[in-house]
C-alpha cells in the first residue's frame, strides 16, 4: 500500500488501478481495526449458517457409505441438521471420506478436496479412513487419510453406527463454532 502512487493514479490501467485500490482498501481496513470489528460482528452469523447447512459430498467409497446412507434414512434422519448430499464438490462444505483409500483413488480424492470451496472440512469416517483399519498391511491402501489431507473430525468404528456419524457432525459443529471464521476469512 504505497500512497506515493496516489498522485499518478490516473496513469494506471484499469487492472492496475483495481488491484492497487483493493489493496489500499484492505490495508486501510486492517490498520484501522474495521476488519477486526466486522469479523467479530459477523462471525457468529456465518458460523450459525454453516453449522445448520453443512452439506457433505455425495461420495461413497465402502461399507461406511452404507452407514452414511442409513444415516440419511428415515430412522436416523441426517436432514434434521440441514444435511443434504450434493454431488458437485464446488457446492459442498464437508468431504466425508468413508472407506479405505487405495493408491488408484488417491489422486482423485486429492483433486476432489482441492475443488471444494474454501471454508471446507474433512471428516474421516471409519477405521480405514483413520488409519488403514483392517487393511493395515496392504500394499495398495493409504494408511490414514490424514497423510494426504488435513482431517478435522475422526469418527471411529468399523463401520461406525449412523448415530456415531451424526455425533461426528455434531463435533464438527462445535469445531465450526470455535473457529468462528469471520467475513474476510484470513487470519
Amino acid at each position: 500500500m504505497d500512497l506515493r502512487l496516489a498522485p499518478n493514479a490516473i496513469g494506471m490501467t484499469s487492472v492496475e488501478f483495481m488491484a492497487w485500490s483493493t489493496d489500499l482498501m484492505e490495508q486501510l481496513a486492517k490498520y484501522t481495526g474495521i476488519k477486526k470489528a466486522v469479523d467479530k460482528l459477523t462471525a457468529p452469523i456465518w458460523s450459525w449458517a454453516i453449522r445448520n447447512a453443512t452439506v457433505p459430498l455425495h461420495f461413497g467409497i465402502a461399507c461406511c457409505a452404507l452407514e452414511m446412507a442409513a444415516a440419511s434414512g428415515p430412522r436416523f434422519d441426517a436432514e434434521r441438521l440441514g444435511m443434504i448430499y450434493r454431488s458437485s464438490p464446488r457446492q459442498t462444505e464437508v468431504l466425508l471420506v468413508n472407506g479405505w483409500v487405495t493408491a488408484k483413488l488417491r489422486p482423485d480424492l486429492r483433486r476432489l478436496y482441492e475443488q471444494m470451496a474454501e471454508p471446507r472440512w474433512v471428516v474421516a469416517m471409519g477405521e480405514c479412513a483413520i488409519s488403514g483399519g483392517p487393511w493395515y498391511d496392504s500394499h495398495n491402501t493409504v494408511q490414514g487419510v490424514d497423510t494426504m489431507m488435513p482431517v478435522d473430525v475422526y469418527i471411529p468404528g468399523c463401520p461406525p453406527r449412523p448415530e456415531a456419524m451424526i455425533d461426528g457432525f455434531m463435533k464438527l459443529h462445535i469445531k465450526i463454532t470455535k473457529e468462528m471464521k469471520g467475513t474476510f476469512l484470513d487470519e
Partner: protein
Amino acid sequence: MSEVRKMQQRIGLAPGGKTGDVLAQEIIQRFPQGVTVTKATLNRFYAQVDKGMLLKLANFMKEHQDFEHVTSVGGVDWLAEKKMQVVYHITSYANKVTAELVVDLPRDKPEVDSITPLWGGANWHERETWDMFGIVFIGHPKLERLLNPDGTEVFPFRKDFVSGRRV
C-alpha cells in the same frame, strides 16, 4: 452334504443331465495321456491337465459335455516347488456338474492358452491373474493391468513380493 441326500436330490432335479463320473469317464477315453482325472463324484470331478492339452480339453467340454460357465480362473504361486499353477473351475448348468482343472507351469516362464475365446466369462479372471501373478495367457484379447494402478511393474500376489508389515 452326505452322499445319499445328494443322490435323492440329483435324481429329482436333473433328469436329462449326466453325472460327474460319467463325464469323467468320457474324458478319460477321449484324452488318454494328457489328462489325469484324480477324483470324480456325483456333481464334481477333479483333473490334472498338461499345458498343451488344456485348449483341446476345454473345446471338448464346451461342445460335447455342454459346460457353459467358467466359475473361476485362479493362479497359485508355488515358490518352494519352483512352479506356478492355474486352477480352472468350469460349471455345466445342464448336468449340474462343476469341474476343477489344474495346470502346472514352470515358474520362470508361466504361459498357457487363454480360454476367453471359448467362454467370455474368463476374460477378466485371466486378466486379473496376469495382473497379480504375471502368468501370460496366449490369445487373450486385452491382457493389461486391471486392479492395480496402471503404472505398477511388480506382480503383487507372488510369494516373493512382501506386502506391508507382516504380523
